[in-house]
């Protein structure tokens, strides 16, 4: 898997921040992840779980304090030149398109910026026009002179995507690409990502708190909790038959129409909120909020839950992997087999 072409790989990735008072926040605490061209991977979790830090680290905007990020088999180096070359391949799409565009730059300049940075001077207008039309802004010439404030939210996000596409990257990292957009516009942007994947083999890592979004476009999903991936696998398996108690709770509280609700088990509303990344509990990090621990279902493995840290889940695409002592006791150890 990791040797495959143009794949973005993270191995045992760790990012720590020093906090005042000598405490250390472990924002990303051991993550293995692969994103290959032609697949959309959703990284889901609550705010504060480290998903944005993970994305920034994958893009080289943040330095990893441990583990490696590699692209196409080559580990990421942080020299200016190496980063610049890397960024032609892996591009970022930010959450808020209004902030991501300089209000003083026209659409043309915003899209051409990447070309200018990488000193690609041949046929600049042609490349900009092509990127805009690939992002669904047609006819592109009509948008050249527009300023961001003259566009709607959906159009702005398309401009941001066009600005990433103009460098012909193999992968996009999109941090909540539709969270700030109106509901009816969301689908259009997601369809665009899906079309780019299907028609041009673009891969994407989509960071989101919205599991519905993963259901709409992702092939695989990784659920993150306090700096670790706690469950990952194909979207159908993870979302329709979740095995980690945290994923089960997340899926159960999704609002759904009553007709559907009847088929879904009672919502499991976890008490409390995500702990601070500087106070990660020992043992299983989810234990203090775990409904299985609270209900006594996990009594048989409780000593492990409170004393034994779980393995970092492997990046394999196929098997459905779960970091849970109880699940391991029930389903056998998939990790050991791999």
């Amino acid at each position, binding site marked *: 898997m990791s040797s495959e072409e143009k794949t973005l790989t993270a191995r045992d990735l760790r990012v720590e921040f020093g906090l005042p008072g000598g405490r250390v926040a472990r924002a990303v605490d051991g993550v293995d992840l692969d994103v290959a061209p032609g697949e959309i991977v959703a990284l889901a979790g*609550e*705010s504060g779980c480290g998903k944005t830090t993970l994305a920034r680290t994958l893009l080289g905007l943040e330095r990893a304090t441990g583990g490696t990020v590699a692209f196409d088999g080559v580990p990421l180096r942080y020299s200016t030149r190496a980063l610049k070359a890397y960024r032609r391949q892996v591009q970022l799409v930010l959450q808020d398109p209004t902030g991501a565009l300089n209000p003083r730059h026209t659409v043309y300049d915003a899209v051409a910026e990447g070309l200018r940075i990488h000193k690609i001077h041949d046929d600049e207008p042609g490349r900009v026009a092509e990127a805009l039309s690939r992002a669904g802004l047609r006819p592109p010439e009509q948008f050249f002179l527009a300023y961001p404030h003259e566009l*709607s*939210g*959906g*159009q702005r996000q398309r401009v941001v995507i066009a600005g990433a596409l103009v460098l012909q990257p193999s992968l996009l990292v999109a941090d909540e690409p539709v969270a700030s957009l*109106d*509901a*009816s*516009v*969301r*689908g*259009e*942007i*997601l*369809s665009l990502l*899906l079309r780019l994947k299907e028609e041009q083999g673009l891969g994407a890592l989509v960071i989101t*708190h*919205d*599991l*519905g*979004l993963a*259901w*709409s*476009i992702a092939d695989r999903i990784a659920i993150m909790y306090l700096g670790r991936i706690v469950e990952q696998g194909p*979207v*159908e398996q993870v*979302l*329709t038959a979740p095995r980690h108690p945290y994923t089960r*709770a*997340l*899926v159960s*509280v*999704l*609002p*759904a*129409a*009553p*007709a*559907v*609700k009847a088929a879904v088990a009672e*919502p499991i*509303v*976890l*008490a409390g*909120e*995500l702990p601070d990344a500087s106070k990660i509990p020992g043992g299983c990090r989810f234990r203090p909020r775990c409904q299985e621990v609270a209900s006594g279902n996990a009594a048989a493995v409780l000593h492990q839950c409170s004393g034994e840290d779980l393995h970092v889940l492997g990046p394999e695409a196929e098997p459905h992997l779960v970091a849970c002592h109880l699940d391991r006791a029930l389903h056998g150890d998939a990790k050991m087999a791999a």
Partner: protein
Amino acid sequence: MLLEFKDLRVTYRGSRGRLPAVRGVDLAVDAGETLGIAGESGCGKSTLAMAVLRLLPKSAEVSGEILLDGEDLLQMGWGRLRAVRWTGASIVFQGAMHSLNAVQRIGRQIAEPILVHEAKTTPAAAARRAEALLERVGLPASRARSYPHELSGGQRQRVMIAMALACDPDLVIADEATTALDVMVQAQVLQLIAELVTERGVGLMMISHDLSVLSAVCDRAAVMYAGRIVEQGPAGEVFANARHPYSAALSAAFPVIGDPAARMSPGGLAGDPPDPVRLPEGCSFRPRCAVAVERCGAESPELLAVPVRGSAGVADAARVSACFVAQEGMPVVL
């Protein structure tokens, strides 16, 4: 009826001319009932909320009636209005951080409206009530001595709810009250809101862009587009079986996990909401509509009872839709 809008119209005067935000809305909320209002930014749903508490800017021209317990809020004197603002109706805003005073302990902020509106209450009694309210919304009473920045987003939203309940209002308006929250925290807050509605018998008007949230909490839902209500009915029905193409698109934007139809096909609409200064002729949704017929370009549809799919053309008075296609009993999605 606890709250009734009668042909409410709100127009903002701005540099680009007159901007109609609400264009003739009729709605009603009964005590103990929850009404959801769905729509996108700019559709007029927040203007509706602000109009109830007369919090609209000076540039707004308001016509029609807003009756709270039969009394027209738009005709009220300022003194009466001040009393109504906490005891009759209160509001929970989206940005709890901005709505709370950063340099005042939250206990005092909750007690403040009690002291202002109930002259007989002593500060000590108000403080005790504030603590009781905090416990009711699931926060320890000791939190009364905290400052807003010491709380998480979900806790602040709970404080906002406690504040809205401080003077035992008959009506609570929640304007995107859970939008900025995470899924799990949102579930906690929604559960709390549902409990409080049953327990206190207040009327709730809940405004959100997320039709799926409304369907989980509300009895009825109204969908707004370009300043008008385009569909109204039982919330779960509107979400699961929309009778207006716009509500159908809104529902599709929040797919039900496990629904094979939604897998790898994100729903959505082409185009953007119309510019309120230049609304299209006929039905204002027509430019984005996939099922529009000739008539839609000429006439603006009224909100009428529509037959529900599967009920053999029988119109259901509880379901109203402003769509000619739905009124004919035809499907509103391709």
